[in-house]
Each structure stands twice: as C-alpha cells, then as structure tokens.
C-alpha cells in the first residue's frame, strides 16, 4: 500500500523521541480501527522505536519503504494486531 492510498499521513521527521510516537498516537486517534496511517520518519531512533511502540499498542505495520534520502515511509493499520 502506498502513501497515497493510506487514510491519513503524518510527517515525524521534524521531532525527536518521545514526541515522534506521541504525534503518531494523536494521528491514530482520528482514525477508526482498520484504517491506515502513513508515517514519514527518520532513520535511527525513530525507526528503531516507533514500530516497536506501535506493536505494543496493537497496531500493525504492513509496509516499510526506504526513501533515497534515508528516511522511511511506513504504513500502519490502526488496531491491526487486535483483529
């Protein structure tokens, strides 16, 4: 699933941990279970920590794409691990 097809998108490349995950959580709150969010994030701490926190809270990452500039595009399904 590409970024364009996600139900919402968020860019967290301008913040650092723990605000990265806070912004993702806030964005997910606006969605219903089963809807998708595209997350634009940096390499390093964000890619190490944000997906793990998503898993802990029951959201399912379905695709990870590495961009040429070293950032990532990640698609997550809200509540996807509880289904």
């Amino acid at each position: 699933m590409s970024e364009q097809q996600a139900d919402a998108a968020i860019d967290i490349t301008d913040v650092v941990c723990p605000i990265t995950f806070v912004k993702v959580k806030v964005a997910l709150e606006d969605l219903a279970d089963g809807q998708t969010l595209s997350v634009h994030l940096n390499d390093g701490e964000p890619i190490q920590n944000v997906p793990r926190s998503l898993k802990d809270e029951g959201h399912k990452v379905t695709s990870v794409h590495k961009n040429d500039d070293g950032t990532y595009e990640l698609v997550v399904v809200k509540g996807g691990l509880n289904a």
Partner: protein
Amino acid sequence: MAVDYKALKATGMMRMKQKDCISMRLKSVGGHFTAAQLRAIEQVADKYGHGYVHLTSRQGIEIPYIHVQDIEAVKADLAKGGVENGVCGPRVRTITACQGAATCPSGLIDTVKLANEFDKRFGGRELPHKFKFGFTGCHNNCLKAEENDMGIKGGVKPSWQPDNCTYCGLCEAVCPEQAIKVDAAAQQVTLDEAKCVYCGKCIKSCPTDSWTGENGCVISFGGLYGNHIAIGRHTLPLIVNEEKVYDVAEATLQFFAANAKPSERFRACLERVGWDKLEKALEGVV
C-alpha cells in the same frame, strides 16, 4: 605495632590519607542491598565513621573514616545486619549487574541471579591480578559489559519462519547491523548470522511474530577501564545453556591463573600470549 595495610586491603579495608583511618569496603553483588543492611550501615557510619558513605564505581558501598582500632567492632556490628566485607587486590572483585530480566522490560537474562551464582562459585578467588565480572541484561548495555575482564550480556538468537510473514520489511529497517535482507517479490528473508549482535530488535518489532528467538549470554573478554583502556572482545557465539556460562568463566579464570604473570591484567596477558590461545582453551567448553 605497625598496621599491616596490605593485609587489610585484601579484606576491603582501604588505607586513607588520614592517619590510622581506613575506608571500609562492603560486599556487594549486583549492587543490591537490603533495607536491613542499609540500617546497619547507617548506624556504623554514624557511630564509627563521619556519618556518610561513598558509593563506589562498582556498585559497592564504602564507609570512610573507620579507625583501625575499631575494625573488629565495626565488622561485628555490620555482621549483625547481614553485611559482609568486600575485597580488593589480585582476586575476583565485586561482581556488578544491572537489574536484568527479573524487573526490566528490556532484560533478556536474569543478571542478578547470574551475578549471585558467579559470586558463590568464583567470588574472591586468588589470581595474578584483579579480575572483574559484569552482567548486563540486554544490548542497551546499561552495565557496560565490555569494560570488564569478562562481561556477560543478555542477547537473543533470532530465527525466522515464513508462516505469517507479510514481507513488510520492518525487520530489515530496524536491524542496527544491516544483517537482515527482505525480498518481498521472492518471499525470502535472510539473516547474516555473522553480522547479528543478538539485540532482538527484529523480534520485538515484527508485526506478525515471524521472528522468534532463544535468550542467552554474549560474552566479552579482556575489557579494561583504568590506566589502560580497552574494550572487551566477543569471540564466542551466543550461549543459551546457563551451565555453559559457568564453565566458560571457570575455564577463563583457570587460563588467566595459568598464563598471566603476577600483576598482569587479563587483557595484557591475552595480547602477550595470543587471543587464539584463549579461544583454543574455550573450544572444548562451548
């Protein structure tokens, strides 16, 4: 009669600048002290010391300003509170540990249990020079395993199974060593085991639990952090069997005792006789 400070040092009585005073080192394993022990220490520090303690760099406690004449009385008071004296000099020294898997969400091994078992088996053993063991529960390395003569770090050996894998590529993205390659088109995931540092990030992040693993110990040898600084080296694969960890430690101490010159640290000994010699000595053990 002259005070034999060398003999005192062996039992953790550290000579101070101040005449006839020692700083009394107390026994610590993994930095745990019970409330009852702390109460006994508090009373001694007030009665015989200067009303304070010093927390050492290796998770221990020292009570400064104990007069040499009071040593026996202080030891008796401390013993009533379940407090023993520490050690210094050429022997196995205080064993350090993070809180580990018993309480820490990141912990992969029970560092406190292991540290106590090590203390039972090896604590205080006489050697050519000091020898330090340190335990850290995971790859975050809060307890700095590699600065010890032998460091033990919790790790997890990952393995992948295809059943639920969606080939999303997250494991490849989170792997700090670029050891994982995901080929979604070919539906293949490969792990370069030589690159894996057993951190378990692939397992923790995998949305479908396609990565699982077995926890164990990653051991480093020859760390130093004093006059000379050297980082301990990893020469063995992850060890899952707990008994084998004790066997490796026993064989390592025996190697050190047999090969080091007096007052030669383990690292210097390894550099002189060759790392391959230790590897050979441990071959039969692991």
